[in-house]
């Protein structure tokens, strides 16, 4: 069950990697962005997203007719890795690129594809993901936001919470209940709707992050009308569609590299201080990164060949182990290099340390807690 393919990147792929890297380095030098920890979720910069869209680097794998480049999954993997390793602010278009695009390609109507995908690919249309609700947490099946059928569409009432970057997004793909809640069949009667976040009745309330930053929201729906053509896939099939979407997001390099910048600075500082013993201890982190990266790339390669069933367990494992690895970097680094973490510090090491410490607790919570992942993996293991 763990027979994942190995990948040796081709010369073309290496060239692409270097192209992306050089582009990002040039923009760092120019001051277009300041590299930061966890920038894939918290680095919102619409003008940078547009720049990326112009390069053709959003929707890289999508059909050309929808604004994509028809490049391989591995090319997209390389692109994403380089964004993460550079700490680039890709959060604005992130969910549209990673989740909404693939979702629409799989389940969307031709009209939806033609309308949304090219805009997303240009970096001009951002999507929020509406899953959690105040009383649902890890128990997504208990979702209560409801859509009632009316002439020509649906009326949505309810509330979503922890919605990353909804305040800059244009739309939300929301999981809502289109049939009444049934304690015994919680998973049925759920559907995915595309909700225009500028529509009447939508209120977005910021939730301040513990650091004072702002990247998640409460989104309230008060009799919001959603036209019929904004239903994604089949009505009532939202749970299955949502699960497929979640599996896709589990194994990406963003589950390994959120605190990579700090690891890089750690090695630099240790080299600078000629601290060989510190370097010896840090090699464990490098070995862990190497191993996780192989696992994650193997899953990406397998996804390319369409084996979504075989990857469910390895994908969950990448997230479970990868996010703990991301969390471990500041904890190990602070024992090897003297630091005083400070968000405004001049020394990168101290700044990245502060960012990493404050963001780290989220890693094992967002997108499926480690506890939920363990249960899913174990169930999959004994069913084989």
């Amino acid at each position, binding site marked *: 069950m763990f027979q994942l393919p190995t990948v040796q990147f081709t010369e073309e792929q290496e060239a692409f990697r270097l192209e992306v890297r050089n582009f990002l380095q040039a923009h760092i030098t120019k001051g277009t962005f300041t590299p930061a920890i966890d920038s894939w979720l918290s680095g919102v910069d619409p003008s940078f997203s547009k720049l990326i869209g112009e390069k053709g680097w959003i929707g890289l794998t999508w059909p050309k007719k929808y604004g994509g480049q028809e490049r391989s999954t591995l090319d997209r993997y390389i692109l994403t890795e380089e964004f993460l390793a550079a700490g680039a602010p890709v959060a604005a278009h992130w969910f549209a690129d990673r989740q909404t695009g693939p979702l629409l390609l799989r389940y969307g109507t031709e009209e939806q594809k033609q309308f949304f995908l090219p805009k997303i690919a240009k970096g001009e249309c951002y999507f929020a993901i509406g899953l959690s609700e105040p009383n649902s947490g890890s128990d997504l099946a*208990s979702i209560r936001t409801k859509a009632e059928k009316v002439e020509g569409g649906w009326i949505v009432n309810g509330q979503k919470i922890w919605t990353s970057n909804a305040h800059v997004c244009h739309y939300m793909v929301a999981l809502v209940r289109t049939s009444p809640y049934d304690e015994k069949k919680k998973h049925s009667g759920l559907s995915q709707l595309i909700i225009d976040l500028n529509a009447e009745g939508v209120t977005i309330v910021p939730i301040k992050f513990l650091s004072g930053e702002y990247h998640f929201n409460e989104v309230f729906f008060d009799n919001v009308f959603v036209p019929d053509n904004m239903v994604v896939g089949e009505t009532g099939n939202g749970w299955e569609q949502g699960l497929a979407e979640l599996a896709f997001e589990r194994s990406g390099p963003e589950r390994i590299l959120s605190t990579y910048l700090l690891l890089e600075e750690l090695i630099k500082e240790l080299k600078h201080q000629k601290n060989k013993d510190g370097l010896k201890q840090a090699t464990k982190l490098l070995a862990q990164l190497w191993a996780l990266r192989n696992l994650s790339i193997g899953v990406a390669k397998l996804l390319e060949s369409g084996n979504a069933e075989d990857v469910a367990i390895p994908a969950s494992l990448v997230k479970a182990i990868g996010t703990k690895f991301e969390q471990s970097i500041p904890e190990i680094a602070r*024992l090897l290099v003297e630091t005083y973490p400070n968000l405004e510090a001049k020394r990168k090491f101290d700044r990245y340390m*502060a960012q990493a410490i404050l963001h780290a*607790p989220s890693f094992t919570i967002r997108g499926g807690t480690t506890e939920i992942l363990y249960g899913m993996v174990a169930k999959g293991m004994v069913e084989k």
Partner: protein
Amino acid sequence: MSEMKEMILDAAGRMLKENISKDVVDLLERDDWARGIWALFEETGMFNVAISEKHGGAGGDLEDLLHIVRLTGKYAAPMPYAESTFANFLLEATNQAIVKNIATYSLKEGFHLQNDLISGSLHNVRWARHADYLVARVDSFQGTQIALIDLQKATIEHSNNLASEPRDTIILDKVKPISIAPLSEEQLFYTLSIETAFKIALMTGAIERIYEITVQYSKKREQFGRPIHRFQLVQQHLAQLAGETAIAITAFHNVCAAIQSKDFLHEIAFARIRIEDAITTITSVAHQIHAAIGMTHEYTLHQYTRRLWSWRDEGRNSPFWSNYIADYLLKHDVDLWAYLTKTIGKK
């Protein structure tokens, strides 16, 4: 502790509990602080604990003071109580007159003395912008000294730690100290270890509070139709939280007991090393149990976890004390078991 002492602690605990709401802690984020509680503490003599009689002390020993400091940690009290009292401790330890107004301190290298004037800069000095005095280590070719400095004469650049507590840069340019006195190498290690004990007290307080908050939450929050504390994996987190909390509290009490018995350097080292490990586990499991709500500013958990993440890198930390113990073990021909049971050299 005597009954009288318990009354002091009860009073301090009550004052803090009744007056420090989440909003009061948040004052820091508007560059303000809890002046009201400071005044209450002054009125009730909380600054006279462990001060010698000749300086107007009202009784109480270092252990009592450490317990009050622990309580200020438990309620995230946004005021420089630990700093002011430790500054006066430093003054008393070097036979200098103590001060009445707000004081802070630093034991880091950065100031030097030339022609009786102090110059240099120090980073991350706690609460400097709100303090009247600084008690600081000053180095010169005569050795290390402890000086009392009027902060009116200093340039102060603002900076904050992860919990928005003031951690400022102080720049002195040929400033004449109010008083100054030498500090021997032995005294230096003594003061460094007492400083570490103050930090351990603060940390223990914050840990106690995280424990309370988290257990409460696990009883109230439901998932999948049950309170979350019924899930085995949450139980595991809770048990780990309990274990590390018990370890931290016990370590703190043993540090207090060791200080009374005057034989405490290694115990403080062990306590600091171990409590930093406890912080890693405690902040991690407390946030994991709370999930998303714990990451919001509105919820109180972060007022304690952010402090712990800052405090663990302040003062002399785990790597410093590990180095201290490693040096000791290398240089002395000690039997490990005799060392651990404090029976070295006894037959």
